[in-house]
């Protein structure tokens, strides 16, 4: 490829392409007459589908043509003046971010497809929200300026708030002695929980800006903050990312948000939004505050291990399928934090791998629940039973994803769990041993879910006429199955992409630790 072509504004293009689709939908919606609601809905679906597919195609193209996995450091960097005084518009990718950009662009068409029939009120608004969300999510992963990152990071709350609150599931709950809509409760909880973490991050960010005079991430990664200040900065960043990951005990927003969100919302939440937390730890906490990261490692480990065991046990007790998977997500993200803070190559690569793999698996599991929910409008485990006789294809797909979630070798979940555990074992064998029980527990609740939903006698009459998965659903789940299988059987190309980024973070980390020890 020629130089000039690879130097175009590719990342900005990928980031802002979805906005064009959103704009088209807005224009269409404004021009439409009141009686054309059906047409608007149909066109919005197609425009959203087309936009997300183009975005995906462009991102894949950029990845294969212009991205060189061998290079250490950031590629496809674009820099433009923005606010001035050290704050600029700067984007770029490295091994740790490019695959998450791809994960985002990959999941959006699937989300649109998943909501094709199940969302039929205010479709245009729904699609606009998803397209906006896509821009913000890609922005988070490509931003190379801390302020820019923060803007995208927090902006993603707005569409998600609306998605949960408007298209979430019906139902009420008791709150402070009043009967309120459960999805509204979940939307507020999601928003406010995440906001408080992010605002502490903002204060830390401003302090760093004052010290370093710039918010360029590359410059900040090599800027050595004083050891005393690192602790506070680390804690502020931790407040934000720990909520996002989420880590025990600040995970309680997640089950609510997951349960109430529409299927596609849960998929995005599990597959991508949670990854922003892990990505943040990797991109900021470890390289920028290496001393504090090392110092607070016991804290992270304690919380992760408690999180893994506690949420796995909680998952056992769930009566709601989505809630069960949500708790399992918290447990699986525990491996990510374990791996990241181990300071070992296996641990970190494994953590990033687990983030990717968990994206596919949990996304797929939420889609599976969505398949059932579309047919029966309930997520209660007790409602089901004996589905295997009626839904053979679904039984197969669901089984594979359940197994992947449990960590069956040959599927991606296994690699994503074993690598962080190896890394953890090197630095803290007790944490690794305790965390391993989480793998066993996950088999427990995963198999329980599968048995109660799929096996047994078909006792509920309402299930007598249930349809098996149709082509659209097979297509969505099939692609995810292939990805899970590919990552599980042949993880090394993916790990090789992560490797340069992990190496550079490790180098900063260990150099700083060695310097501090002297």
């Amino acid at each position, binding site marked *: 490829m020629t130089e000039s072509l690879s130097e175009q504004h590719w990342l900005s293009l990928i980031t802002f392409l979805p906005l064009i689709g959103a704009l088209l939908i807005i224009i269409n*919606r404004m021009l439409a007459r009141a009686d054309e609601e059906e047409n608007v809905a149909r066109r919005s679906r197609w425009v959203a589908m087309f936009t997300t597919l183009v975005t995906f195609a462009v991102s894949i193209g950029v990845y294969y043509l212009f991205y060189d996995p061998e290079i250490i450091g950031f590629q496809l960097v674009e820099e433009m*003046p*923005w*606010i*001035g*005084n050290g704050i600029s518009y700067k984007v770029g990718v490295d091994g740790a971010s490019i695959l998450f950009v791809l994960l985002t662009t990959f999941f959006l068409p699937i989300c649109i497809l998943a909501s094709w029939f199940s969302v039929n009120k*205010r479709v245009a*608004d729904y699609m606009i929200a998803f397209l906006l969300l896509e821009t913000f999510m890609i922005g988070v992963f490509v931003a190379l300026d801390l*302020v820019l990152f*923060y*803007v995208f990071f*927090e*902006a993603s*709350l*707005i569409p998600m*708030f*609306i998605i949960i*609150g*408007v298209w979430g599931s019906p139902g009420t709950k008791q709150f402070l002695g009043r009967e309120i*809509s459960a*999805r*509204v409760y979940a*939307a*507020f909880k999601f*928003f*406010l929980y995440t*906001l*408080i973490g992010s*605002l*502490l991050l*903002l*204060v830390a960010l*401003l*302090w760093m*800006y*004052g010290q370093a005079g710039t918010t360029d991430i590359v410059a900040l990664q090599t800027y050595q903050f004083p050891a005393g200040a690192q602790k506070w900065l680390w804690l502020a960043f931790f407040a934000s990312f720990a909520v996002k990951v989420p880590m025990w005990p600040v995970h309680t927003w997640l089950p609510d948000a997951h349960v109430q969100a529409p299927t596609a919302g849960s998929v995005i939440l599990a597959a991508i939004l949670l990854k922003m937390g892990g990505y943040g730890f990797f991109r900021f906490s470890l390289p920028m505050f290496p001393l504090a990261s090392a110092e607070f490692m016991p804290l992270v480990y304690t919380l992760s291990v408690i999180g893994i065991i506690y949420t796995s046990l909680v998952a056992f007790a769930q009566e709601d399928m989505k809630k069960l998977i949500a708790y399992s997500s918290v447990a699986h993200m525990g491996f990510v934090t374990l791996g990241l803070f181990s300071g070992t190559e296996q641990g970190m690569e494994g953590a990033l791998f687990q983030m990717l793999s968990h994206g596919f698996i949990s996304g797929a599991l939420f889609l599976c629940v969505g398949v059932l929910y579309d047919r029966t409008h309930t997520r209660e485990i007790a409602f089901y039973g004996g589905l295997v006789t009626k839904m053979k294809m679904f039984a197969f797909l669901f089984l594979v994803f359940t197994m992947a979630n449990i960590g069956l070798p040959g599927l991606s979940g296994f690699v994503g769990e074993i690598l962080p555990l190896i890394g953890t074992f090197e630095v803290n064998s007790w944490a690794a041993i305790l965390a391993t029980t989480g793998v066993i527990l996950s088999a427990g609740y995963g198999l329980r879910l599968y048995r109660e939903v799929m096996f047994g006698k078909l006792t509920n009459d309402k299930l007598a006429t249930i349809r098996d998965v149709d082509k659209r659903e097979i297509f969505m789940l099939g692609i995810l199955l292939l990805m899970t299988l590919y990552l599980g059987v042949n993880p090394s190309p993916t790990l090789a992409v992560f490797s340069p980024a992990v190496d550079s973070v490790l180098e900063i980390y260990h150099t700083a630790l060695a310097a501090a020890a002297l």
Partner: protein
Amino acid sequence: MNLLDYINLSFPEIFIALAAMALLILGVLIGNKASREISLGAVGILVIAIFLTSFGGSAQRVAIFDGAFSIDSFAVFAKVVIYLGAIVAILMSDRFMVREKIMRFEYPALILLAVLGMSIMVSATDLIAVYMGIELQSLSLYILAAFNRDSRRSTEAGMKYFVLGALSSGLLLYGASLIYGFTGATGFAAIAEGAANSTNIIGLIFGLVFFVSGLAFKVSAVPFHMWTPDVYEGAPTPITAFFAAVPKFAGMLLFARVMVEAFPSVLDQWQGVIAIMAAASMAVGAFAAIAQTNIKRLMAYSSIGHVGFALMGIAAGTADGVQSVLIYMSIYMIMTLGTFALILSMRRSEGMTENIADLAGLIQTRPGLGIMFTVLFFSLAGIPPLLGFWGKFYVFFAAVEAGLLWLAIFGAVMSVVSAYYYLKVVYFIWFKEPSTEFEVNNGAAVSVTAWGSTLAMVFGFVVAIGPLRVAAEKAASVLF
């Protein structure tokens, strides 16, 4: 410098004063039937004043009238924003005033006089000039609050505002006299010098506290905020819009100038006072608004909270701090005018409505209005990338830089609390099922203001924040 130079440099103010009086005479001669034309005349006068201010005068700092009145880039920045805000406020009120049958020719003239008062406030570098500016502004505002004189609520608002305002002016004046007594000067520079050389500053601090209390009343900072919700609720909505946006802006700028120009040497003494006021304002603004059901009262508490955030910048006491106040208040003014334009659009066949619950399902019945409300309320909550976030960004930065880390963290927590009630409005608009529709016809000025403000919120971070920062930086630098 001779008298001609004085007139030349203060010409925008002289022009507004003369024009306001001319409009009054014209109004008396023609009567109320020409009040719309007089409104337009006032707008024209303000447009001319903008040109006079930005192109006349001097780029350097010039102090005239024995140092009582300064023309510098800080004052020019402030005046341009004040005039623009007043123009929008006058244009927005036209349709409303006619419908409510309170369109009278005194209205634009009173606004002009208030604007003149504010002009003097932001240029004043002498305590007496400060007091003159504040009184001219306040007296006009008292009348404006009671402008709907047949309405009990409006009259009550005006009365309350007047009684408490008079009290606060008394405090201010008492403080000024103490400051004069202990430093022997009323000019800012001389006070600063006197304060720096004085060994016994207790008396000065005593006066300063009174003075700050008076100013805090004018910008409705806690604990001097009690009047705000009642006056906001009682005054006719376009006048509330003017109250919330323009005098607040002028008051904060005056506040900033007094503190950093006259009392830089006793920064340690007043920093704590302002910081605590800032924290208290943020807290009251955040918690008290939660229970409100009337959107004008909600905006009153919201404005108290916003003043708290802006005070953070003053508490920093640095050039960055003043710069952040300028940025914050400018953005706040755009947001507030936009929000009130939307409140003016909340009209049903039976009349205006002010209940938040009436917004239910707005996104379905009036998508445009719903989007504007959503954007502006997310912006008021300070969610990026909307412009409201950038105001917070700079005041937090100033506070962190000045070592007021606790204040910044407290502010962060309070923004989360206040996000709750902003989200509650969004909740009504998006999550609730529709109720009765609003009427469509509210006048072009209201729609243009609302859309303009919304677009500024959405695209401001691309186009506006850079230039705004540069302008504010330039304006703030003359105070140091």
